[in-house]
């Protein structure tokens, strides 16, 4: 309505119109539709408030306040509902809180749209409310779940995902420690499998060599795997005695091999073991040597000597600790089984 038109309207109508115009504000959304909203409700939004006061807009359909593009009619009605409730000063905090709780129960798409719309109208309390709701949705979920909920494209390449932004295992110390742990775990698993044998083996140590021979020859089948291995520590001690070719050593060497390689479960008889002996010596040396090389090689590539020393010390500590632990368990088992 232009002012010229107003002049010809009858006084009563004019009064009503002006009253209406005073307490209603016209808002225009991006799609062109215009809504009339009660003034006190609309003024709750700072952006609308600014337009009305600073620029005098909104008093009629001609000069309706055009809202930002992010505010579509559905969102506008939601926002106005929010404003309508909150601009009333009489509500208690509890009431406001429970209204808010109910208000934000909507699907995530609408929640995001609402956040966007509220932000463009600078309605900070509503932005806070919706941000909190979105944060609650995101919290504690796995990336796949979050992508599912918000329809995010999974467009990071595998390398980018693995590239750590925040990766504590980047620390070479921790990586080495992890490797040592893994190695130790493997060894302990092996030891656990052979633990029962060790128990029996201890008992068998008192017997003479002949007894041992006959024992071995006698129970070929099952006890081979069980009995004929010893703990690594014992093997180590006997390393310097390997050169002699007594049957005792042979047996022990055979045990060493079984222990070291683990997968080799030859049912070779004692006689054949002499063949294996010389090979074993080499193989065993290789095993130990290669293990050391593995360690040294890795260390030299990445870390400086001072750090390496530190790591070695740490590594030893862990080995010692695990070894001690297993000794304890081992001896405890002995105690239990040998009353």
């Amino acid at each position, binding site marked *: 309505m232009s002012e010229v038109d107003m002049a010809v309207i009858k006084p009563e109508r004019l009064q009503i119109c002006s009253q209406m115009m005073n307490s209603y504000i016209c808002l225009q959304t991006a799609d062109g539709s215009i809504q009339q909203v009660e003034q006190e409700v609309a003024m709750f939004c700072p952006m609308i408030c600014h337009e009305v006061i600073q620029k005098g807009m909104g008093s009629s359909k001609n000069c309706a306040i055009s809202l930002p593009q992010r505010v579509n009619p559905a969102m506008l009605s939601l926002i106005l509902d929010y404003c309508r409730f909150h601009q009333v000063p009489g509500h208690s905090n509890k009431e406001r809180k429970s209204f808010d709780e109910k208000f934000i129960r909507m699907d*995530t*798409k609408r929640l*995001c*749209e609402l*956040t*966007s719309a509220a*932000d463009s109208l600078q309605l900070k309390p509503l*932005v*806070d409310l919706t*941000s*909190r709701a*979105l*944060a609650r949705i*995101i*919290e*504690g979920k796995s*990336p*796949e779940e*979050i*992508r*599912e909920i*918000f*329809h*995010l*494209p*999974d*467009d*990071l390449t595998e390398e*980018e*995902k693995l590239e750590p*932004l*925040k*990766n*504590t295992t980047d*620390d070479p110390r921790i990586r080495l420690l992890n490797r040592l742990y893994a190695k130790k775990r493997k060894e302990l698993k092996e030891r656990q499998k052979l633990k029962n044998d060790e128990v029996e083996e201890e008992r068998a140590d008192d017997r003479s060599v002949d007894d041992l021979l006959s024992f071995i020859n006698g129970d070929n089948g099952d006890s081979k795997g069980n009995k004929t291995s010893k703990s690594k520590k014992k093997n180590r001690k006997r390393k310097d005695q390997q050169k002699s070719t007594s049957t005792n050593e042979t047996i022990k060497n055979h045990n060493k091999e079984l222990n070291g390689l683990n997968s080799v479960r030859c049912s070779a008889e004692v006689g054949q073991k002499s063949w294996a002996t010389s090979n074993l010596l080499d193989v065993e040396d290789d095993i130990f040597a290669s293990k050391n090389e593995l360690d040294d090689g890795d260390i030299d590539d990445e870390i400086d000597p001072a750090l390496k020393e530190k790591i070695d010390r740490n590594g030893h500590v862990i080995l010692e600790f695990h070894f001690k632990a297993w000794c304890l368990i081992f001896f405890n088992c002995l105690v239990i089984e040998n009353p």
Partner: protein
Amino acid sequence: MAICYDKQREPSRLPSKTDAELDWISNLPGHVIDQILSRLPIRDAVRSSVLSRKWRYKWATIPCIVFDNQCFNVSSQDQTFIKDKLVNIIDHVLLLHNGPIHKFKLSHRDLLGVSDIDRWILCISRSSIKEFVLEIWKGQRYKPPSCLFSCQNLIHLELFNCLLKPPLTFKGFKNLRSLDLQHVTVTQDVFEKLISSCPSLERLTLMNFTGVTHLIIDAPNLQFFDIGGIFDDVSFLNTFHLALVSIGLYVNIDNDENNARDNSSKLLRFFVHLPHIRRLEIQSYFLKYLAMGYVPSRLPNPCVDLNHLSIRIDFDDLEENTAALCLLRSCPNLQELEMLARPEEQTCIERSTNFWEDDHWSSLFAHLRMVKVSGISGVKSEMDFIKFLLSNSPVLEQLTVKPASQEGEWELMKELLRFRRASIYAEVIYLDS
């Protein structure tokens, strides 16, 4: 324009038109995403970097970083391992963060006052920090580096278990509005200088401090003051806006020797600079402190704004009763009153048996609506007080009585039943101990 899309998603497919249209959240403005991510625990916020290409660095601009006990789940007994991991995480986050940090909180129970914190504070002091919270749960007092004292944008500073020693060039925090120091060591001079050089200070909390014996609070904008500790003296200067005060003196002072030295009225001095006080809590032995020296029958200027008063009192101590009475007479608009009986350590020599029996006034409590009396055991002085309270408060709505123990409950209740009530709306609620 209707868009049809297939509801079933296959995992990891290339972004298509429909996906981009459905993805509403990534296109929200940066500050809104910052808000959303700031509300997540730091771990979730940083993990958002693997969601999609757009999200890779969105977390790096969050203005609010909080490292607390929930920041990682590691149940390990090895303290050094946890410490190393925590240090590692904080180093990484601070290094990769890109933008101003407005709020920083570090409060992890396994973090000792290590020198790594110095490095982090230096990093943070370069980025216009506004709120800084540091809580060292274990170990000895941590001394923040001097770069903390150059953060002129600080609005809120909270330190727990720290040693404050600002550099000599420290001129105060011009924008500091809230200061919270608990379990801190600070010398007298440093403390005075700190308070007087923060002109915008509105809230001050001080608990369990060492090194300060005379509290001189010179803060013209101070509105909230909460202290608890051991001190000799407290005095306010220019605190005309101070509205909420809670003071606890955790040590029992000996009245006699102090009286001999100084006869000036602590009570008068205390209230001189608190004309607009609205809420006052006198805890532990502070009433004893106030009772030292001369105690008038009422204050020269009544506290007209005082509407909530809470006093910890020993009902058998004559001086404390006198001080309490003076206070009660000086707050005509009191609406809520709480009297907590201090458990007696030894029997008091001066037993004032008839203090509350005498009719000291008429219509004293014209606005008193809610009263709570706790920790009583049914002694005469206590019952006298309740009796007189009930008969002098015409608009009383609720009186809550909570005894210290179950002994003598029945007698107490029986007596309570007999007391006359000036208010017809008064409810007497008895709570179990």
